């Protein structure tokens, strides 16, 4: 019958199409796995800032972690070659998580070194991706924002540990930083999605840091310098 001939074509084409897609996804997945490996190494390195002796050695730790940036860039370059043009969001789920993680790592490094908020441009440059989709593989805005929210929870932990390590000044600066960040996030109209859930967490990070500030102030442990 005429119609069934035509139909078997349809399904033949479809299984060919799906095979292509599967193998492409497989390639992307294995590339992302390598990227994740390096990202994990960087995160682990940075964890040592929470150690007693780490807090005195922040610049050295940062240098060591930044040594892995070239590898990260290589991975992103390889990954972006695999993704067909204009199909970034078709496969976005594969690298969404690791990119958020990298945005966090990059923002943490910038903060530790300069105590400034890393811009989207700075993060994109650090990991070797673009901002505009005309320029290729991009850093999605929402992934960058998710990275910033991870930064906030990391900093609230960092504040506690830096007080333990005897740095009483840092909490005041972090509190200032986080309240600015939180004021920024409150300007966004977030949908009821993942980002929104994490944003709700920012409140508690800020609260935690403010509690530390309060504890220090009320006991007169606040150093004499300007806050």
């Amino acid at each position, binding site marked *: *019958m*005429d*119609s*069934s001939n*035509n*139909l*078997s*074509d*349809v*399904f033949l*084409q*479809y*299984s060919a*199409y*799906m095979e292509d897609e*599967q193998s492409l996804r497989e390639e992307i997945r294995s590339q992302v796995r390598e990227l994740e490996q390096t990202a994990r190494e960087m995160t682990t390195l940075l964890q040592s800032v929470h150690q007693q002796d780490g807090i005195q050695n922040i610049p050295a730790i940062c240098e060591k972690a930044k040594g892995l940036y070239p590898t990260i860039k290589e991975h992103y370059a390889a990954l972006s070659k695999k993704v067909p043009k*204009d*199909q*970034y*969001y*078709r496969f*976005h789920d594969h690298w969404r998580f690791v990119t958020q993680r990298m945005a966090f790592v990059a923002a943490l490094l910038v903060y530790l070194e300069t105590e400034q*908020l890393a*811009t989207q441009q700075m993060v994109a440059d650090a990991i070797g991706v673009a901002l505009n*989709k005309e320029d290729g593989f991009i850093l999605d*805005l*929402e992934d960058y*924002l998710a990275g910033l929210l991870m930064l906030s929870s990391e900093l609230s932990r960092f504040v506690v540990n830096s007080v333990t390590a005897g740095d009483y000044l840092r909490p005041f600066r972090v509190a200032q930083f986080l*309240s*600015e*960040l*939180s*004021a*920024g*996030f*409150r*300007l*966004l*109209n*977030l*949908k009821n999605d993942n980002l*929104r859930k994490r*944003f*709700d967490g920012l*409140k508690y990070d*800020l*609260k935690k840091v*403010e*509690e530390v*500030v*309060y*504890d220090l102030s*009320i006991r007169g442990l606040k150093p004499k310098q300007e806050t």
Partner: protein
Amino acid sequence: MSSGRPRHRGGRHGNSRHGDGGERRPPEPKPEPAADDTPVTAMFRGFASQLDSKHDLYERLVKKSRDVTIESKRIIFMLHRVTSEEQDRQVLEEAAGRFRQLEGGTLRQIAEELAGHDPYLYLRAISPGLQEYIEALSFYHYLLNDRVISCAEVQQRLTYPGGSAEPASGAEPSTTAGEPPPPAETGPGEGEVGDPLRLPLPYHEYVLGLADLTGELMRRCISSVSSGQLEECWRLCALLRTIHEGFVNIGNTGPREITRKLATLRQSLTKVENACYQLKVRGEEIPRHMLADVFSATDDYGAHDDYAAD
């Protein structure tokens, strides 16, 4: 521990504006730069407008997709309404006109909205409408040409060679879909001549639309029995079997939706096969006008079919 008081206001997420994304907003009112804007706040104002325009586009597409769904469903109903030959032709002609309107109207607007964006970012917004449209179009195409439309043919219909400069010939906004007037076309990334405007059609969407088609074929089959067109019934049954085989072959390697639709497909097929069985066995002894009643009984049988969902 003593209670530190968070300085910021608790439950306010600045979320109130989300949801009015339906209308094309006048060019984003430049956020009034407050005097005490820190660099961080200024940066976030920029992010806010980026996120808003993305969400707004998404919501506009959802609305348009819903319009496409409604019109497609109406066309399907219309196509079911008639069964006799000479009426068929009239209905098919009317359907052809409505498809042209839909393609030149809402679907074209969707293509225009998507121009310059990554369609996969917004696929979830337009997917329901697209699938319903494919279902209606392939049903129409089957009635007209007696074969299933191919993905390339559908894509052909959703490609607008004129670019986005002038409206397609004969494309008045469909009154039935109640759509807003065509938006003024703007936006960077448009207007490259030579590059035809097209609404990209991922193969998955096409196949999912075909899966929906089987429901219509089943209905058509049952009603063709009651109107005495037994030939049609056998042919539809064979066609459904072929489609079913194709989907079984895909199995659950495809997108998750396919597995769900396969179960429905299986029910439809069972219904049709039972109808054919009844026809064969009892067709001789039951008067034509009573056959329809027999099949409304088999409908229930099909619906409770448990092994359909394997």
